């Protein structure tokens, strides 16, 4: 906790903590207050729509990663494997199953409510579909599914957009109406989307601040905190607008003062390496992992993981004038829903625009959506940009697959490689 205080000293961070804690308290109180909850996923989440009906979103991936950060995931995964879940599959799913068995206690130590609706937003990951099929067996509640086609050819076609919009209209909204007992309010949705776009503007400004030297933020390890509210339960809320405004002000102030990012060891004094990172982080040893970078003066200036819940830095914004269409485009545009050539283009652009010294892949055992093809992506980005590319492996929430010494060795060699490439000249 004391370490955490060092990191969370900005007002925005304190505000985020309060927002999240309040949300979990509301969820915990839901059985008494009568508020209803909807379980859904981060990529392609329809938070504005869910909140349009005054329903509370619950995101199983967030529960899983929080469980890992609290050191609970090991026992949860073991419980799921004892029940017959394979050691080969995504550990988020197993962590979630195990958490349910242990009483569905959320990150604040309070029990999460059972869902009133399972809203399967099937975007960018096949496992989501299976995960919700598993949850459907666990809970006695309706389930509705939004199938979001993959951008196989690197574009959103009219038929893809129409397919998603039609499903939102004909399946998702009726299911939300039924679960909440309330009518869909399009004007309220427009308002929500206006607020989403505002927060998205600020989020992009925050992420793009890393183009400065030194970068005032770490866009991977620090980035996961920045995306927290907008990727989870708060997009489209006034709280999110306020939070991102405040965050952006703080970051711009850091830019003005020429400050580096805040890391687990306090403020980074010297920026030695600027990296683009592909792949999700490890959650079981999050701080240890981060420190392997910060101790070497390595700052992550851009990351793909901070785009899984929405890609905003290419100009997409939720659009109050095209509410359902823009929700559809949002879902279709999430990072893991992009084909590999688009992902490579994105990483190449990051290396160039953020003047990175290298691309590092953190390959996650659990996650075929991210990981399958990463070795080729790495070579391709390396060939196009000429920067050294590095590769480490870990897992999201299964501590068995985090080998600290191994990763540290690899990172040290990688940083040496970057230095050699510079001809021994240090920044």
């Amino acid at each position, binding site marked *: 906790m004391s370490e955490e205080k060092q990191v969370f000293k900005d007002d925005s961070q304190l505000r985020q903590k309060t927002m999240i804690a309040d949300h979990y308290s509301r969820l915990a109180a839901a059985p008494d207050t009568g508020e209803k909850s909807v379980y859904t996923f981060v990529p392609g989440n329809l938070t504005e729509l869910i909140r349009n009906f005054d329903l509370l979103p619950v995101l199983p991936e967030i529960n899983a990663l929080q469980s890992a950060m609290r050191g609970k995931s090991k026992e949860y995964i073991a419980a799921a494997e004892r029940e017959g879940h394979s050691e080969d599959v995504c550990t988020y799913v197993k962590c979630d199953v195990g958490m349910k068995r242990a009483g569905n206690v959320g990150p604040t130590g309070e029990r999460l409510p059972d869902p009133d609706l399972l809203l399967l937003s*099937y975007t960018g990951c096949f496992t989501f579909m299976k995960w919700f099929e598993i949850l459907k067996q666990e809970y006695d509640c309706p389930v509705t599914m939004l199938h979001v086609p*993959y951008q*196989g050819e690197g574009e959103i076609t009219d*038929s893809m957009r129409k397919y998603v919009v039609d499903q939102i209209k004909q399946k998702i909204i009726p299911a939300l109406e039924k679960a909440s007992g309330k009518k869909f309010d399009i004007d309220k949705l427009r308002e929500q989307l206006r607020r989403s776009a505002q927060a998205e503007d600020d989020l992009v400004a925050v992420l793009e601040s890393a183009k400065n030297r030194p970068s005032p933020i770490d866009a991977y390890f620090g980035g996961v905190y920045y995306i927290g509210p907008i990727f989870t339960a708060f997009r489209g809320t006034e709280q999110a607008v306020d939070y991102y405004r405040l965050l952006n002000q703080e970051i711009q102030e850091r830019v003005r003062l020429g400050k580096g990012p805040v890391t687990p060891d306090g403020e980074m004094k010297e920026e030695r390496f600027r990296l683009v990172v592909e792949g999700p982080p490890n959650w079981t040893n999050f701080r240890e992992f981060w420190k392997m970078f910060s101790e070497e003066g390595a700052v992550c200036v851009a990351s793909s993981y901070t785009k899984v819940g929405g890609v905003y830095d290419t100009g997409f914004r939720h659009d109050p004038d095209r509410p359902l269409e823009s929700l559809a485009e949002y879902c279709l545009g999430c990072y893991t829903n992009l084909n590999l050539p688009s992902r490579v283009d994105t990483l190449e652009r990051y290396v160039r625009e953020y003047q990175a010294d290298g691309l590092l892949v953190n390959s996650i055992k659990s996650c075929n959506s991210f990981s399958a093809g990463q070795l080729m992506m790495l070579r391709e980005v390396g060939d196009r940009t000429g920067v050294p590319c590095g590769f480490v492996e870990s897992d999201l929430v299964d501590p068995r697959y985090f080998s600290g010494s191994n990763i540290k060795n690899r990172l040290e060699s990688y940083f040496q490689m970057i230095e050699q490439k510079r001809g021994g000249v240090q920044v």
Partner: protein
Amino acid sequence: MSANRILELVESAEETYRDMSLASVKAWKEKTGGLAIGFMPIYVPRELLHAQGVLPVGIMGGGDDLEIIRGDAYYQSYICHIPRSTIELGLGGQLDCLDGMLFPAICDVIRNLSGMWKFEFPEKLSRYLDVPQDFTPEMGGEFYKSELLALIADLEKRGARPYDKEALRASIRLFNELGGIVRDLYALRRASPWKVPTAELYCLQRAATIWPVEEAITILREYHELVLADETRTPMDQARVVLAGSFCEQPPLGLIKTLERSGCYIVDDDFIQVHRWITRSLDVEGDPLEALVNGFLFDAMASPTRYCGDKTKGTELVTRVETAGAEGVLFCAPSFCDPALLDQPMAVASIEKAGIPWTAFRYSENNGQFQVIREQAGTFADSIKLWSGV
């Protein structure tokens, strides 16, 4: 005499599918001047390709014949084997005779492979064939139709014959016929598994993804007639099992033979589902494109790759066990196969509820050692026989 001919047919099938150089495809191309397009498991609407004069060619991985040299530099150790052998085949030039590849939407590995193909083989057609997980005609149906139209346009751009309704009707008739024969063989195996050993059926089905459909029909029909008439094939005391989970990466033939030798009659399975994916003959009267769409929406097999909606997972497997008169289930999935392995606990729950015995193991297409599986399957078969006698 007929035994020799059966052997000949099966051997030629095995030779065809094991031939990594795709000699039969090259010969077909030389003869016809047509395009050949590879497709990965599970299902693509081959009728559409055929109607445009294209030869659909099933690419089901490299099996146990292929040495992986480059493929491992493309995939981490925790990803299944089929994408690395497929990329190995591509990089090794064995797939050069193909004008493109189709990657059906069954999992993230195949999905991402479609993008890798675009990088590695930019001159070839590489298309991810998305399929709906919404099964209403006005939503999923419309979307699927637009995917098929995009595929048609892509094939035309590559020089395939323009789309023609009548041609598609004719192709649907042919694939209906092939599907019918395969279903008949499955029915015969359910009724008399000693007549249709799974290793044989497997080789024939596998080759039937490579042979032109007309040839596949002739060969499979001949095989059907021969085994029906073969009096030397007589029942043995074997346990009847359904084998589930092997729908994408295929087990080595040696594994199938091992299971049969260990005392199991496989009376239903998930191999090479492309022939059986649509569970009945498609309509040939109305709009043939609609027929393909409707077949996919309403008559496709239940599969871990297909959203189960309101249905209870595993119900279909229980029905298959009952229909096949099976006594147990072998869950036989490729290592690291997300769809199969995420599905398995749900399917297990259903079959346990129905009181059906089961066992599970994993494989890789290039496994060469079957001792452990042999013992496991043998023990399972013995236990079934023991209990069925009680």
